Structure formats: structure tokens, C-alpha cells
């Protein structure tokens, strides 16, 4: 009897699986279709949605035009290959900077919140959660006022550098509260016995943190590093507000191409190539985070 019962269960489960799979697939159609349109159109002579199917041909021209800094075949080159390269590099610098700042601050503060007793600890942790939810738009006016104020004493030649530095730290600040909370969770899982034995042996708190605890929370560090990289990579508003108009990232470049809905000069598949290129690092890192998160839940040390 038993195998038969199990069989019935499996068929029941399989039917539910297929049914749910199809329903969610249909619900996911807008996501699948829009991403497909973007990526596919970057390889065709016209937007795949508008053209008559017979006239669509495969081409790499959009990508070549994009890297040449051209917006259409007939358009004059306003930008050069080096400009585009610089935009990509700028995007990377912001993302990398945000990643470094967030990771360092969160690994430090996460440890303190998890492991050290101090006055106002509960208050601080609650404040962090509250700050994470705080309306960023109501801060940006004052953050920008602080920026103009603080750059005044600097020589004009240092302004661009200062703008990059400021945008990195200001953008990282938005990620810090949540990532401190996440890192605290990872530190919470490390058994106290490991730390006690090291401290009893006479090691300082900082040494214990660096040599013994950090290697145990590597998955957590990787997760917040990648998350903050993705956040910095995709940032638009802060980059647009703080960087001088000449220093673009892929976000502000794409935003500028379509500003005012201008169509006459811009060949839309070229924008699709820019967007696809911009999307690739996110896709790659995103698959990493998912894998890391899986590993974390499987290999996480029991607390």
C-alpha cells in the first residue's frame, strides 16, 4: 500500500508544481519580455518591436556605434571612444568606492553591535533600522548644501576629485544602516567560545576580530560587498546631482540620451546596446549573490 500512497502524493505534487509554474510564468511575462526586447534590440537593425519581422536583420552596428560615441549612423560624432570608456570607468569607480566604504564600515560597526556592550546599544541598533527607512529625498537638499559649503575652501582644480569622493561617501551612507544590521546578523552566528578562548590567551579585541572572526563571516562580507557594488553601479540621482556635467556615468549618459524624449537624432537600438552593456555586470554579480546566499544558509555556523 505504502508505495502507492507515495505515488499519489507525487502526482498531486507534480500537478501543483506544473500548474503554479505556468501561472507564475504568465505573471512574469512583463519582466521576461521587456528584458528580452532590450537585449535583442541591441543586436538588430531596428527595435524588434516596431519593425516588420522580415526586415529585421542581425547586426553588431549598434554596439560599434555606441563605443564610437555616436547616436545614429548619420549623426556626427560628438563623443569619442575614450569618452565612452571614461563613462564606463566612472561608473566602476563609483560602484567600487561605495563597495569599499560600505564593506569596511559595516564589518566594523556590525561587530560592535553584535559583540560589545555599550551605553545606548539597543537605541543605536533601532536607530539604524529607522534610518534605513528614512526618506532619502528629504535629506538630499541638505546633503547638497553641505557639499557646496564644504567644497568652497578647496581649489577649483580639486573639485572634480572632491565630487567623486563626496558622491561615493554620500551614496554609501544610504547603504550603511542596513548593511550594519546584516553584518550584525552574521557576527551573531559566530560562537562566543571561539572568541573567549582567544581573548583569554591574551589577544586584543581588534586582533581577535581581524584574525579569527572575520574569516568566519566571509560569506556575509561577500554578500554586502556585492550588494553595495550593485547599488553604486546603478546609482543615478546622486551621480546626476553631485558630479560635474562633463563627468558622466552610464546612468547619466543614458538618461541624457533620451532627455526630452528626443528621437530625431538618437537611434534607439544604440541606446539598447548601452543599456545592455550597463546591465551585464549587474547580472553577473547578481548570480554571485544568489549563490553566496545559498552557501550562507547551508554552511552558516550554528550560534
Amino acid at each position, binding site marked *: 500500500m505504502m508505495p502507492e500512497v507515495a505515488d499519489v502524493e507525487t502526482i498531486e505534487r507534480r500537478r501543483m508544481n506544473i500548474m503554479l509554474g505556468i501561472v507564475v510564468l504568465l505573471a512574469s511575462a512583463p519582466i521576461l519580455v521587456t528584458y528580452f526586447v532590450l537585449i535583442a534590440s541591441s543586436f538588430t537593425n531596428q527595435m524588434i518591436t516596431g519593425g516588420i519581422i522580415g526586415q529585421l536583420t542581425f547586426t553588431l552596428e549598434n554596439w560599434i556605434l555606441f563605443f564610437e560615441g555616436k547616436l545614429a549612423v548619420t549623426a556626427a560624432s560628438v563623443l569619442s571612444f575614450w569618452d565612452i570608456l571614461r563613462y564606463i570607468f566612472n561608473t566602476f569607480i563609483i560602484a567600487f568606492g561605495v563597495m569599499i*566604504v560600505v564593506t569596511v564600515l559595516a564589518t566594523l560597526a556590525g561587530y560592535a553591535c553584535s559583540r560589545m556592550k555599550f551605553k545606548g546599544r539597543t537605541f543605536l541598533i533601532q536607530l539604524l533600522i529607522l534610518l534605513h527607512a528614512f526618506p532619502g529625498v528629504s535629506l538630499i537638499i541638505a546633503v547638497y548644501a553641505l557639499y557646496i559649503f564644504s567644497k568652497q575652501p578647496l581649489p577649483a582644480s580639486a573639485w572634480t576629485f572632491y565630487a567623486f569622493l563626496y558622491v561615493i561617501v554620500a551614496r554609501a551612507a544610504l547603504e550603511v544602516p542596513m548593511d550594519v544590521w546584516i553584518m550584525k546578523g552574521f557576527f551573531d552566528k559566530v560562537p562566543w567560545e571561539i572568541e573567549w578562548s582567544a581573548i583569554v590567551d591574551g589577544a586584543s579585541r581588534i586582533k581577535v576580530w581581524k584574525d579569527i572572526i572575520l574569516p568566519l563571516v566571509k560569506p556575509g562580507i561577500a554578500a554586502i560587498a556585492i550588494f553595495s557594488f550593485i547599488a553604486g553601479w546603478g546609482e543615478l540621482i546622486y551621480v546626476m546631482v553631485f558630479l560635474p556635467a562633463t563627468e558622466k556615468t552610464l546612468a547619466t549618459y543614458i538618461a541624457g540620451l533620451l532627455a526630452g524624449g528626443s528621437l530625431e537624432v538618437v537611434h534607439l537600438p544604440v541606446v539598447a546596446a548601452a543599456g545592455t552593456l550597463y546591465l551585464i555586470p549587474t547580472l553577473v554579480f547578481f548570480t554571485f549573490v544568489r549563490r553566496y546566499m545559498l552557501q550562507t544558509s547551508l554552511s552558516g555556523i550554528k550560534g
Partner: protein
Amino acid sequence: MKVSRKLTLLFFLGPALFVVVLFYIVPLFLSIYISFTPMTDWNINRYLTQFIGLQNYERLIHIMMYDPDMRAVIITTCVFIAVTLVINVFGGLLLALATYFMDEKLSLAYQGLWLLPRMTPVAVYSLLWYYFFHSSGIGLLNAILMRLHLINHPIALGLDPRYLPWGAWFIIIFVNGLVGVSYGMIIFYSAFKSIPKELIIAARVDGASTGRIIRHILLPLTKWHFTFITVWQMLSLLTSFAQIFLLVEWRVVDSTWGQTWALYVFRTAFTTVKDQGLAAAASTFLSVIGIALGLVALKALGYKKMILEPKGDI
């Protein structure tokens, strides 16, 4: 506390505290201060020392009462938050339920797919919808509707006065809803997963249908998560404006009926009239609502209980 202990604490907490104070606490008060000054065009040297009392607030209330464009902002904000919130919470709940009853592998794939819009750079995500809602024949929506012979000519859903305000609202709600559901999905899914499997199996053995399991086990046990997600999402809808900003800039939606309060604050300060005093006054409203909702959210999930005391700090 010993000096060396204090120094150690400073080493760990100092940098994060510095950033938090500089970019949250100081701006919060500075922003309120700016709302009492006539600051325009970012001329801080000239205006930051002038105190004009409540004039900006009076102006704001006057505009709210008499300017039809501002009334559009208020109505749009209310409709946008209410409808998107329902979509986000219930959409997230449905996705979490569907993926909970699925095979693990399949559910992970779908969750990854639904998280993708959240991870995608905002310029690319908005570009997807620029192509989708484009007012010419290349817009996917127009292409589909024309293929189905529902329309003869391409339509500008978010711009054409005939479809306003509904067309613009539909677009901003749709675009934000698709990002928002993944949050509810993740929280509900992990909440369902943390319910002991024995409960579900026992119910199954007793012959309970899937619908009854959902109604009598899964939903009652995740009531608090429901409250938390609702409040948290309301907060993020109140303040998120990057996608809508691009959709307005790119002429996908109308700048009057596609403008929420947060976007109004940003545009007033940075792009349109550059009146930072007025924008700061408008943003104070957001801050007050934000702090109130944040406190409710903190209560809802009982974070305080989750903050364990350090076991044995030496």
C-alpha cells in the same frame, strides 16, 4: 569604562557613526533649517543666514490650495501610494505562496527573476519601460494593441490628454509595482519557511486542502509580517522617485499627472524653479510621515526582541 575599551569601541563604531551623523542627522536638521530660509539657486552664502520664519510653509499651503498642478501632485501621490501598496503587498503575498508550494529549484529561479528589477540599474529599468510604453509604433504596448486591432494608431498613454490622468497613473503604478512585489515575496516566503513543516504535514494528513492550509495556518502565523511589509512599503513608495523622474524626463508620462510628492521635492530643488526653501518645507512633511511610519514598523516586527544582549562581553 577603561580607556583602552573606549578606544576599541571607537575603532569599531566611530567610522559608521561619523557617516551616519554627517549624512543623516546633520542633514535632517539642516533641511528643517533651510525650510526657514529663502534659499534659491543654491546661493548658500547669500541666503543661508536669512531667517524668514514660516513663509515657505505658508507659500506651500497656498500653492496646495490654489495651484491645480499642486493639487494634481497630491492626488497623484495618494492614488500612486494606495494602489501600488495593494499591488506590492498582495502581489508579494501571492508570489510567496506560489513559490512556497513549488519545487525548491523552480521557486529559486522565479524569485531570482522577480528580484531582477530591484537589482537592475534604474536607468536600464526605466529604459525597458521607455521601450514598452513608447508613444510611436515601436512601443511594445502599441505594437500589441495594434496587432489585436484594439487601436488603429499608436497612442501616447502617459501623455495624451484623452487618457489623463489614468494613463500616467497606470504607467507609474505598473513600473513601480513590478519592483515592489519582490520585497513582500522575500519576507513572506522566509516567514512561511520558518513555520514548522510538521504543522503543514499534520494538516495534510488530516486531509486539509491547500486553500485551508493557507487560510488557517500560513496567513494567521504571518500577520505581523503583513503589517511590517505594509508600513515598510508605504515608506519606500513615499520616497522613491528615481524611475518616475526618468519617465517624466523622457516624456513617457505627463509631468503634471506623473509627479509624486517626492519627485516634486526633488524637481523643485534641483531642476525646475530651484527653490530650495520651498522644497525643504515640502520635504519636512515627508520626514515627519517617514519617522512616524518608521516607528510603527519598528514596533510591528518587535525588533527590540531580536536585538540580543551580548552573551559575555569581557
